[in-house]
């Protein structure tokens, strides 16, 4: 786990017992987790009376650094040994590392949920239904005699939002093209598993 210089500086300030005693550290740690995991970040998170004596610049810097550190750990799925090596690099002592690890374990699942919710995933297709129609003629052409497919892809319905099913009309060549592409995709997936 690699941390930027800004974050490292913030963490080193946190590790300094002259700057933050253990109680203040625990308070700030909890505030950092809360401010990340709660839907509305509390602007007054740092207005605790026990944190009053600390320089607000240092406080804010450390807060931001701690939040970044937590997120980075969640992103890397860091285990305890990785975390403690990383924090030892920032001159954390044993007690603080222990505190950080327990707090991290406590919030790990919600952190993972939060990180997993960033970005969007494509729709899941669960079923397909199709109809074959035969066009004899159109307004422009007197005789056409061509088959065409009406395909409907059923999309997995989530309870909160339902996406409409995807339906389209295509000729035989287009359908063959689609099928070929799908086969290609399946094959590449297969190949990826065989490495």
């Amino acid at each position, binding site marked *: 786990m690699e941390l930027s210089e800004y974050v490292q500086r913030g963490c080193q300030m946190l590790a300094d017992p002259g700057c933050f005693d253990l109680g203040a550290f625990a308070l700030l740690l909890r505030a950092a987790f809360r401010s990340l995991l709660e839907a509305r970040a509390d602007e007054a998170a740092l207005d605790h009376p026990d944190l009053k004596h600390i320089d607000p610049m240092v406080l804010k810097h450390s807060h931001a650094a701690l939040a970044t550190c937590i*997120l980075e750990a969640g992103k890397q799925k860091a285990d305890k040994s990785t975390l403690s090596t990383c924090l030892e690099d920032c001159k954390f002592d044993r007690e603080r590392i222990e505190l950080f690890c327990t707090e991290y374990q406590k919030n790990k699942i919600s952190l993972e949920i939060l990180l997993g919710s960033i970005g969007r995933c494509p729709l899941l297709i669960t079923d397909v239904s199709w109809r074959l129609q035969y066009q004899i003629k159109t307004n422009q052409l007197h005789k056409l005699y061509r088959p065409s497919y009406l395909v409907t892809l059923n999309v997995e319905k989530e309870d909160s939002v339902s996406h409409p099913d995807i339906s389209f009309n295509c000729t035989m060549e287009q359908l063959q093209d689609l099928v070929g592409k799908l086969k290609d995709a399946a094959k590449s997936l297969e190949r990826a*598993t065989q490495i």
Partner: protein
Amino acid sequence: MEEADRILIHSLRQAGSAIPEDVQSLRAFTAELAVAAVVGCLQVLRPSLSSGLTPHLPPGMSARFRLGMSLAQACSDLGYPRELGYQSFLYPSEPDLRQLLLFLAERLPPDPAQESTQPSVGESAILLQAIGARVRELLAEPWVPPALRPQKHQDHVRPKALHVQPFILPNAKSLQDASEVQEFQGGPLVAPAPAQIPCRAGRVASFLEEHGAQLHELPEGDSTRDADKAHRRHLAPRLVEQLRQSWGQAVSSTSGVPAPGRDLGELLCGWGPGSGEPRGKGSRFTHAEKFTFAQEEEATHVPPLAPAEVPSLLSPLSPSHLEQELRAGQEAELASLQDHLELMGRSIKEAGATVKRLTLSTGQVEAEAQQAWLSTTEREQARRLKRRAVDLLPDAPSNLAKLQVVVEASAQRVIHLASQWERHRVPLLAEYRALKKRRDQRELESSHKAAELQVLQECVCAAAAEARRKEGLYKQLVAELDTLPGDMARSAYTHRILEIVGSIRKQKEEITKILSDTKLLQKEINALTGKLDRTFAVTDELVFKDAKKDDSVRKAYKYLAALHENCSQLIQTIEDTGTILREVRDLEEQIETETGKKTLSNLEKILEDYRAVRQENAGLLGRVHEA
């Protein structure tokens, strides 16, 4: 057999049995090793079944017996066709053990490391493997309707699009920032960094983005703020240049008569996007302004017109002349007022200049007065001194003596003070020097220590970096190592197998040669038998024909028949001998195998075991009775 044993032992080692390196064939297997090997195989094949089995032989006879029985049971459960008892493990005979271990080794799952034919190189290969494994896992998962799906992470929160915003990150200990910036960032106006972005997902994404940018040190700066700053810095000279140009144009076009409201138009035209282009294609503002200028230039000759009227003047069909006149009047008034204003402004400027001049002269006069006063006080002092001297003149000698005394006394006092000062000064000076020296020394020491500290810190950093690098290297090497030995063993095995196949082919050739020899021999024998039969038949017929006539011939015939019979008997005997010999050989082989099985000694051992178990039981019973 040696080769086969070695392969077998290798596969047993891979299954996790601790077989010493010096054991190269099954002949060297002790009971301990046999049990360990079988338990190792069973642990791979039936993890649930072998949980109660230990690879080490227990000391008690009954416990040994139980272990052997459970091993035998497990092996026959796996489908081992032969008979197995506890003695097969405790007193292993080589062929039986080979059969059993071959049976188990065939059932071992293939080594996954050996499966991968492509040796992995580098971290990207490891990553690809991880991706492949994950995809395989996902492919193996069956589809479940969303309602039945176990609550997974993604289902709690709806996914949100990635959206990133910059933060205001307070930076303590940054020296470049002015104190106002620090005050602002530390103050209540700037919320703590997470609270700056209301949306949760956006907050998280922004943090990660910010950190990524910090890590990679983007050339534009570490965030968008810096990019903005740089852009602004770049823009500023251009803006100033534009303003200056537009100002120059304004001055040249208005012939020195400043008009209110014109500067704004000029400025705005300068700000506009088409400022560099010729006027003709300018904005509406430019047009309006142009009209104003034209009208002002005409103002000296013709009655001025309102700018709003200009478009209507251009079109000859204007509606009302009355209104036009009114407007003209207003415009004239406006122009006169502007003139007036201009006049007033000029007079104010003149007055200002006068005031400035007057202030300057006042300052001069004040300085002169000060000088005069100073010279006056000087002269006054001189006068007072002279006055004292004149007062003392009448009684000059006595006064002179008095003065002399006073001078003497003051000289004495001065000397006294000087000596006193010297007395105080010397120790202080010495002390000062000593302190200075000590301070210098300390400074030197501290600088030395600081340098040492820095060196140490660098060492620590370097060591940490080295350690990290080596760890990474170690991981990579371990990953590579996993794939290597399997491959080597594989190639060695294929080599050996090929050799074995070659020797088998040679043996097969020999066998076919012997077979063809046998066949040839058989054919010869057959041919000889046929010839004999035919010869005998012909002789028999000839002799039989003559036998009716001649008595001696009859005798000869009898002999012939006897000869034939005896010969066939002889052949039969030889054949029987061959069969018996073969049987003997078979039996010898059988005896050998039976002796190989060491049945008798095994039986004795088993009897001994039986006795030991009985003894143990008797001891236990005795103890029970005692209890």
